[in-house]
């Protein structure tokens, strides 16, 4: 069996990549994708923990399913808002969306 550490490292890397994406990307959709990456990292964690520590109850698995569902909803919602922005301002670059500051 693959040691738990491998999963954790993978998820940690994925999570960090996600964070990097959120920080580095300028396009709203790409940021959203990076967030998805972070959520997947969480899923990996959840499933790995569930399998290793909690084989009977599998709360982690259910959690993962919920996360996937919610992430999907989230993307839908976010895209709607991004679309609105794009419609109104012809850009989806987040650094150009800064009417409100200070």
């Amino acid at each position, binding site marked *: 069996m693959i040691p738990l550490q491998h999963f*954790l490292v993978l*998820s940690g890397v994925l*999570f960090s990549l*996600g964070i990097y994406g*959120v920080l580095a990307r300028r396009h*709203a959709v790409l*940021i*959203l994708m990076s*967030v998805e990456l*972070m*959520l997947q*990292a*969480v899923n990996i*964690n*959840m499933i*790995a*923990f569930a399998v290793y*520590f*909690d084989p009977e*109850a599998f*709360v*982690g698995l*259910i*959690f993962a399913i*919920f*996360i996937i569902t*919610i992430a999907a*909803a*989230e993307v839908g*919602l*976010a895209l709607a*808002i*991004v679309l*609105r*922005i794009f419609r*109104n*301002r012809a850009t989806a670059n*987040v650094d150009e*969306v*800064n*009417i*409100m*500051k*200070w």
Partner: protein
Amino acid sequence: MNPDWSLLAPEYILAGWAAMVISVDLFFGRVRKDYLAYLAALGALVAALVSLIYINDDKPFGALLQIDNYATFFRVFFCLIAFFTCLISARFVQERVIHAGEYYALILVTTIGGIYMAAAEELLTAYIGLELLSFSLYVLTSFLKFDLRSNEGGLKYMLLGAFSSAILLYGISLIYGVTGTTNFSEIAQALSGNNDDLRFPMLLGLVLIISGLGFKVAAVPFHMWTPDAYEGAPLPITAFISAISKSAGFALFLKLFAEGFMPVIDEWRWIVAGLAATTMVFGNLVAIQQRNIKRLLAYSSIGQVGFLMMGIAAISPDAASAMLLHLAGYVISNLAVFVAIIICYNQTGKENIDDFAGLAERAPFVAMCLGASLLSLAGMPLFAGFVTKFILFQAAANQDMLWLAGVAVLMSFVSLYYYLVVIKEMYLGQPEAPTRFPIVPLEYAALAVLTAGVFFVGLYPQPFFDATANATDLLFAGTSAASVSSGPPAP
């Protein structure tokens, strides 16, 4: 064992009422839009009344929710917030928003999310409640389709919310990994065992969870979305966010940390205390420089978050009930402020502080209520803020957090300045037009009720304090509460 479905009656009512509001809007398109507001408000009120049935119950819903006084408190609390939000939205929505049905339905749905956050007994339910609340608020924030600010506020809120909930989830996953469970009390049991080798993931998990929840309650430096979302959102929604998002965040924060993480209190206490101090200092300082009333209130609410977080840093039955008391006082005052602002905004369409010049001439009653509520936020006596802050700070001081209480008092003093600036504009500024505002009975009534509440809490807080004390009674039952608090001292 089948769960007792009857325990969720208020949520059914809210959800059903939301569906009804949408249907009414859909099928009776001609109906006046403000009727929808009253309808939704009625739903919230009914839910609040129904929630009262569960007073002094202590029943689990499966292993997911716990319907106890804590949940009941927040049910009533959130429903009333929704009630007032719906009421004060009436004119605003009628004049500036399309799709009124969805608007009110979303408010009701948000309330359900908030209630689940407060009632949750385990992390998954809490997370779902949190996302329910957040998603609805994202939509509501960007509800003004053609308003660039609304779009922008929604986008920022949404993206950052997603980012931070990912962080929160990662933290949850770590805690799950460390303890093997998501149930609060089981987490506590697992953590109270000696497990030194799991220190690192546990700490990381704690930090991530605090960060995620910190985002929800807008603690510095996770607060960045707050001013922009507040400014961008439709005014009643700003009021709603400031009230429900914070309260629900704190409901979860308090419950999770009191029930789940109590055994490792030494690990996170200083983190939260530091966060609290940073938050109150930053929020209040920046608020001084604001010119837009919504941004001002955003920063002032950040400052208030700092005070509330003291309650968590000084966690104990006393501090918890004091925190809820302050939360209630704060929300009432804040809602009153927003109602007054909405009344003005409906009249003038402006939201800068200088636009309030001469309000005392144009609408003396509104000015008086706004002044009273602002002073309440500043913590002046006769109003709610004084007694609630006093109790909260004292509770913190009781837990060896005198320094934090000191910072809080100082910052509370700083906050007085910017509230006074608003009052100064209202009473000393020259109105741009000498006309009086027309009296809108419903809005004035809402304002009067909330202001009366501000005075009531300020002058006779015993019933409120009893309620919050009852609500938090059971939180600490499972853990070794005695080790943290001395309880009420023997007379």
